[in-house]
C-alpha cells in the first residue's frame, strides 16, 4: 500500500558540522562579470534576476570584468586595501588584548572587511550610517582615531560611551555613524526613519544600515522593509549574509529556499545579491543603490554573500558547531587578498609594498594602544567616575536620580 502524504516538520540542516567536509555548493555562484547593470531607475520587480543571481567583478585571474566594474582609480583601491588591512590588524590586536584580560569582550570582522570599507567609501560623508556590531570598517574609512575606539573597548576615562556600553558598541555623531544598540535589528527601521526625514527636508543625503542574515528574522526587518517601500525612502538596506548566526546557519533565517536579496522585490524594493568579499562589486552595487536613492528611486536591499571567518565573539567557539577548516573551502576567498592580487595584476601594488603597509599599520595600532591604555584599562590606571552613571538618563537630572547619586556617593566615601 502506498504511504499516505503527511505533514512534515522540516528542520534545516547545515551542509557540514564538525568533522564533516565543508560544502558550499548551496551558494549557487556564477562567474564574475555575468550580471547586467541596469539603469538606477529600474523598477524593483525588474531587479529579481540581480537578487537571485550574484554580482561579481573580480574574476579568478584577479581581473575586473563586466558591466559592474566601478573603474576605480588605483589610488582609491589602494586606500580601500589600507582600510581593510587596518580593520583586520586592529581586530587581531584587540582579540589578543581580550585574551590577555585587558578588555572584557571583542567581536572581529575577519573575512567581512570589504562590506563596511567598500560601502563607506562609496557613500558620501553626509550619508548616515546605522551599523550593526561587525561594521568597524566604517570607522576606519571615516577616520575615527583608533585611540577613541580603543578607549571605548577599555571603558576607560576617555570612553565615548562613559562606561555604559559593551565593547564595540561605538557611536560617532560628527562622523555620522549611529550608536550601536547591542539589541539586534533595531537600527534597521530607524535608518528608514532617518532617510524619510532627509526626504521630508528635501536633502540628498541617504541612510545606510546593516543587519545580519540571522537577525533579518526579527520583525524590525519587516517593518523597515514596509516603511522603506511605502515612502520610497532613500536608504540602503544591507543584509550581511556571513552564513552563521552564532551556531545556526543561514538556512535557519530563511536562506534555504530563497536568497535574502530576493525578499526585496517581494516587498517592492530593489534587491541585489553581491559577492561580499569582492571590494569592487560591493563598491559598485553601493554606488548604484546610493544613486538610485538620491534620484528618488527609493530603497535597495543588498545581500552581501560573505563568511564569518572568525568566531561570533570572544565568548564563542565555532569549532563546536562547524568544521574547523570551513573557511579554507569558502569559494569567495579573502577580501583583502583578492583586492591585493587585483592591484598587483594591474602593476599598482607589490608584495613588498604590502608587507611595508602591514608593518606601518601594525605600528600605528600598537602606538594607539599604548596611548589608549594610559587612560586606564579594566584592571589598571584611572577609572571613570561612577557619578557618570546617573547622567544622560534624561537631559536634566531628575530629583530621584539626584538622591540616588547622593546615596552612591555616601556608600563610596
Amino acid at each position, binding site marked *: 500500500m502506498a504511504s499516505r502524504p503527511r505533514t512534515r516538520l522540516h528542520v534545516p540542516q547545515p551542509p557540514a558540522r564538525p568533522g564533516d567536509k565543508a560544502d558550499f555548493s548551496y551558494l549557487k555562484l556564477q562567474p564574475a562579470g555575468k550580471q547586467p547593470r541596469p539603469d538606477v531607475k529600474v523598477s524593483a520587480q525588474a531587479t529579481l534576476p540581480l537578487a537571485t543571481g550574484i554580482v561579481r567583478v573580480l574574476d579568478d585571474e584577479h581581473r575586473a570584468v563586466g558591466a559592474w566594474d566601478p573603474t576605480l582609480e588605483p589610488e582609491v583601491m589602494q586606500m580601500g586595501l589600507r582600510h581593510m588591512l587596518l580593520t583586520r590588524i586592529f581586530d587581531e590586536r584587540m582579540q589578543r588584548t581580550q585574551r590577555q584580560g585587558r578588555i572584557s569582550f571583542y567581536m572581529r570582522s575577519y573575512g567581512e572587511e570589504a562590506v563596511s570599507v567598500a560601502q563607506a567609501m562609496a557613500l558620501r560623508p553626509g550619508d*548616515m550610517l*546605522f551599523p550593526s556590531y561587525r561594521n568597524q570598517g566604517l570607522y576606519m574609512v571615516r577616520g575615527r582615531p583608533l585611540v577613541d575606539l580603543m578607549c571605548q573597548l577599555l571603558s576607560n576615562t576617555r570612553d*565615548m*560611551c*562613559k562606561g*555604559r*556600553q559593551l565593547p564595540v*558598541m561605538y*557611536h*560617532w*555623531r560628527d562622523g555620522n555613524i*549611529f*550608536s550601536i*544598540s*547591542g*539589541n539586534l535589528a*533595531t537600527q*534597521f*527601521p*530607524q*535608518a*528608514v*526613519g*532617518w*532617510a*524619510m*526625514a*532627509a526626504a*521630508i*527636508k528635501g536633502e540628498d543625503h541617504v*541612510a545606510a544600515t546593516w543587519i545580519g542574515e540571522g537577525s533579518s528574522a526579527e*520583525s*524590525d526587518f*519587516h*517593518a*523597515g522593509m*514596509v*516603511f522603506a517601500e*511605502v515612502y520610497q525612502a532613500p536608504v540602503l538596506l544591507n543584509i550581511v549574509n556571513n552564513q552563521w548566526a552564532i551556531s545556526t546557519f543561514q538556512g535557519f533565517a530563511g536562506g534555504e529556499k530563497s536568497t535574502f536579496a530576493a525578499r526585496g522585490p517581494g516587498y517592492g524594493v530593489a534587491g541585489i545579491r553581491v559577492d561580499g568579499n569582492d571590494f569592487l562589486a560591493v563598491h559598485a552595487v553601493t554606488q548604484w543603490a546610493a544613486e538610485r536613492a538620491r534620484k528618488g528611486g527609493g530603497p535597495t536591499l543588498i545581500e552581501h554573500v560573505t563568511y564569518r571567518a572568525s568566531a561570533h565573539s570572544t565568548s564563542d567557539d565555532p569549532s563546536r558547531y562547524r568544521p574547523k577548516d570551513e573557511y579554507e573551502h569558502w569559494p569567495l576567498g579573502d577580501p583583502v587578498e583578492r583586492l591585493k592580487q587585483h592591484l598587483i595584476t594591474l602593476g599598482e601594488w607589490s608584495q613588498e609594498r604590502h608587507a611595508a603597509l602591514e608593518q606601518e599599520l601594525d605600528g600605528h595600532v600598537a602606538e594607539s594602544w599604548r596611548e589608549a591604555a594610559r587612560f586606564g584599562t579594566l584592571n589598571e590606571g584611572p577609572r571613570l567616575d561612577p557619578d557618570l552613571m546617573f*547622567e*544622560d*538618563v*534624561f*537631559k536634566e537630572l*531628575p*530629583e*530621584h536620580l539626584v538622591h540616588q547619586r547622593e546615596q552612591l556617593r555616601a556608600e563610596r566615601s
Partner: protein
Amino acid sequence: MARMNMIQALNSAMDVMLGRDPGVVVLGEDVGYFGGVFRTTDGLQRKYGEHRVLDTPISELGIVATSIGMAVNGLRPVAEIQFADYIYPGYDQIVSELARLRYRSAGEFFAPVTIRTPCGGGIRGGQTHSQSPEAVFAQICGIKVVMPSNPYDAKGLLIAAIEDDDPVIFLEPKRLYNGPFDGDPEKPAVPWSVHPGGEVPEGHYTVPISKAQIVRPGGDVTIISYGTMVHVAQAAAQSLGLDAEVIDVRTIVPLDTQTLCESVRRTGRCLIVHEATRFAGFGAELSATIQEQCFWQLQAPIGRLGGWDTPYPHAFEWEYFPGQRRVAKALEAVMSAS
C-alpha cells in the same frame, strides 16, 4: 480663551507646534487624511501637508522606530499609537532604543519623540481597547510618562512634551475626551464646556512636566490620582461630604513626590486611586514612596485602589471600573482606621 474638549485641545497643541516648528511631524495610523479614529488630528494634514502629517502602515514597531530615526535627523515626531493596547509591538523600540539612546551614546544622540496614545476604559472597548499601561513605562529609565485629566492640561502638557528633548509617553484617558466623567455611566454626559478645565487658550502655552496639581484642597485626607480617576475620586469624596484634598499626579515620571508628600504629611491619611490593574501597578510605587517619606505623620494605613487584576472585560465594564462606590468605600476605610 476658547472652550475646547480634550480632543480639540490636543488638536490645537499639535496645530500650534506644527505652525511654530518646521521640524514637528505628526504620524500614525489613520492620522492623516482621515484625521484619526478619535479625530484628534482632524484637519492637520490639510493645513500642513502630507509631508508633515503622515498616515503610516499598521506597524507600531515601524512607527516608533521611524520616529526615532526622524528625531535623530533633527525632526520632532509626534507619533500616535491608535490605542495604548496596541503599543506592545513597539515596546522594544521604546524600551531598548528610544529610552536609552541618550544614555548609551553619552548624550551624542537623542530622540525627542512624543508618543500619544489613548488609554483607559469606559467606552465599551473590551480587553484590547481599555488598558492603562502607565506602569509598564514607569519602570523604564529614560522616558517621561504623562497623563492629563482635562483639556487645559492636555494641551499645555502636550506642547511641553513636544518641546521636551527627552522622549515622552503621553497617555490620553479617552473616556475624558468629550467630558469630565465622574464614574457614573447612568448619568447624562457632562461636556467640557461647563468645566473650568475646558477653558483653553488658543495659542502657545505649556503646563510643566513633572508637576502634580492639587485640584481640590482639603484637610481630611489626600486622594492621589490621575487621568479619569481624578474626577471619579472628587465625586466620591463629595458624596461622603469629606474635606478631601485631591491631587492630580499629571506626570508619572519624573514624579513630583514633594507635592504628594507635603499633602499627606498635612492630612495624615492617603488613598491612591488608579484605573490600571492594582498588582504591581503604579499605585504600589506611590504607596511605597509615601510610606517611606510620611510614615510618622500617617494616621492610617495607605489605601490603594485600582482595577481588578483581570483583563478589562467587555460585558462587565462597570463591575470592573473602580467607580464612585468603590472609591467611597476605600475612602471610608482610610478614614475609619486610626
